[in-house]
């Protein structure tokens, strides 16, 4: 919540392109947030304001459809509204679901990485805490309680491990497909000798790690 308080489009505040501004309706933004979340290996910042607005819009649309049905408006019109509504609800659900699935999978990693933990919404944090509790209990009952005392941790292989060496993490060097709306210029990837020129609307396959800051500031979109 705290970090998600800014507007979802904050990364675009510098954008002077009028046409892009027009096309960034909430429906567009929701679709973009959903696509980014789907494609990113890591959990991204929760789009609190955008989700709030989308839910309000959904409510409005539901009321409209209900009213139309009651007033006997042409069924085709109603079903068009209904389809639009369904699409938005789907995007919202799928967005939230994708995040929950990432939380389920990487919960121990998210828990110990403050940057990631702060990206969760209030409800997601509570969900994550319960996931940890459930998983710890299950691992303990099934395996750890039956092992010798210095091998009982679910974070460290044994008490002689110096760091947490059992925590699953997402692979950030995985390749993603991305596209920028504007020309970003020469961009230096960590491990390559030549910078890559990122042109507007071209597709690139790049390691997530190298474009991570661009994704997080909304300068580039994943597809």
């Amino acid at each position, binding site marked *: 919540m705290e970090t998600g308080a800014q507007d979802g489009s904050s990364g675009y505040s510098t954008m002077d392109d009028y046409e892009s501004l027009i096309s960034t309706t909430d429906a567009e933004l929701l679709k973009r947030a959903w696509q980014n979340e789907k494609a990113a290996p890591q959990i991204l910042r929760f789009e609190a304001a955008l989700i709030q607005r989308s839910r309000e819009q959904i409510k409005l649309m539901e009321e409209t459809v209900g009213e139309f049905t009651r007033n006997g408006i042409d069924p085709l019109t109603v079903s068009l509204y209904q389809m639009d509504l369904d699409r938005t609800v789907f995007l919202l659900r799928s967005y939230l679901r994708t995040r929950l699935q990432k939380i389920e999978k990487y919960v121990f990693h998210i828990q110990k990485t403050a940057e990631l933990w702060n990206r969760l919404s209030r409800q997601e944090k509570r969900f994550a805490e319960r996931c940890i509790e459930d998983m710890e209990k299950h691992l303990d009952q099934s395996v750890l309680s039956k092992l010798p005392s210095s091998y009982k941790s679910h974070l460290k*292989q044994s008490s002689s491990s110096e760091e947490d*060496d*059992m*925590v*699953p*993490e997402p*692979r950030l060097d995985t390749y993603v497909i991305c596209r920028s709306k504007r020309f970003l210029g020469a961009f230096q990837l960590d491990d390559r000798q030549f910078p890559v020129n990122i042109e507007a609307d071209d597709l690139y396959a790049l390691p997530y790690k190298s474009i991570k800051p661009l994704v997080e500031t909304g300068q580039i979109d994943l597809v």
Partner: protein
Amino acid sequence: MANYYDIDDVLAEEEILPVVFQQAADCFGLLDSSDDTNEVEAGAKAELPFWLARDLHVRGVVAVDVPPYFRKVSRTRKEIEADAAHVDLRGRCQYFYELGLKIAPLVGDKTIGPFLLVAFQTRYKEVLVRAHTAASAVAPKHLTLLTNEEAKLYEAGQLSTAAFKKWRMGGPRLQRAPVLGRKRKPIE
């Protein structure tokens, strides 16, 4: 270890390496030997799984020997150079690439990396072509030559072809959850 729970990584580390003990080890029943000695002598040759060999090698208890198929002069290297796509790598090591990547830094052999890359690049093309063209139901003979990593790519290739076909023909999009299995008998 970010991939602690990764099944393939766990299994790749089960692959066997030839080692020579540099010092004696007091370890009952390690080598399945029929005599009752507790001890493995220094100089003893043995075959140990990678997960055990790695740390023992690092601590100087054993010296890891490169398996024959990774050696600089080996039949495998010659065969790969000649006709990479038809070499039976699976028969040599199911996790050929994973193990290669793990063993190269351990023994400090810088030629293993490029060798793996060449093998993978040439074979990958073949795998992809076959995955996209093969009739789905039959498991082609070619599959028996593939390492685990390659077989996964092959499967992925087939799935994407199938998904593309389904998308083009417009198959059913709502289905029973696959996790429920196929136990329910069709009615009628």
